[in-house]
């Protein structure tokens, strides 16, 4: 199975880094979509089948938390796994996000290996 992945971050540089890492992993990737904020991401989700979302938290227009809250209200979107990639290092914030339904949290700076491991765990992929 090839996975369609949506990368949401207002930094073009960070999106480019994440896309690059995704292409280096062993994961079978269908399409990679990019969005600059939560609103663009929700628009993308209306038109495309997405298997996994990697999102930042602090973004203009619509934050990652607002996006996850919107998704939770939508029967079709609420089960798409979301991994947050953010600079916020607070344990309380991570707990709060997990209560809202995000599956995993990766703190910047991250390594390609850590991102790859978390994606595999969330998608239940075993490359062995």
């Amino acid at each position: 199975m090839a996975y369609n992945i949506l990368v949401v971050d207002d930094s073009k540089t960070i999106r480019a880094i994440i896309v690059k890492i995704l292409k280096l992993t062993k994961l079978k990737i269908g399409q990679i979509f990019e969005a600059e904020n939560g609103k663009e991401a929700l628009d993308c989700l209306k038109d495309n089948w997405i298997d996994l979302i990697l999102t930042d938290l602090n973004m203009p227009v619509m934050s990652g938390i607002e996006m996850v809250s919107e998704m939770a209200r939508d029967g079709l979107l609420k089960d798409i796994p979301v991994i947050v990639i953010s600079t916020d290092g607070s344990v309380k914030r991570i707990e709060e996000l997990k209560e809202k339904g995000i599956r995993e949290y990766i703190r910047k700076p991250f390594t390609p290996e850590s991102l790859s491991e978390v994606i595999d765990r969330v998608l239940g992929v075993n490359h062995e």
Partner: protein
Amino acid sequence: MSNKKIVDIINETVSGVLEQTAFMFPEPVDMASGVSFEDFEYVLVKLNYSGYKDGTVQMIIPVDFCAELSANLLGEEIGDVDPEENNFDSAKELLNIVSGQLLVDLYGNEALFSLIDLEVKKLEKDEFFSIIEDCEYHCCMVDDYPVITIFTSQEVADECKSINS
């Protein structure tokens, strides 16, 4: 927390982030022996943090350093990276990551913060010197580029006020 401890944490955090994200290896600067700031055009990136404590984190870096930073972050050659699209963006992201890590290193991972009002601008020479004359800054060198970090906390400012009053 002592000023010396804060300075050590800032230096360790900036070094750690640059090493891990951009494979750049800063070296400490002996300010007593003098650093030449004259040779570069500079970019200021700044954000405010609020929550457990309030304050500001700023970094001042040479424009040419931004280009190297972008290339290293993206794993590309400098010539292959579009400076218009990436250089300021990379500087903002560096500050964002440094600030997130710095607040955890200073106050622990139980403290809640919001990072807001991230902005970037080119500095005129007189603006640059005015800032470094007025603020307590921390400088390290990456290759030949000075990388300046300015951390301010409302708590420290309040303590200074009460000591002086």
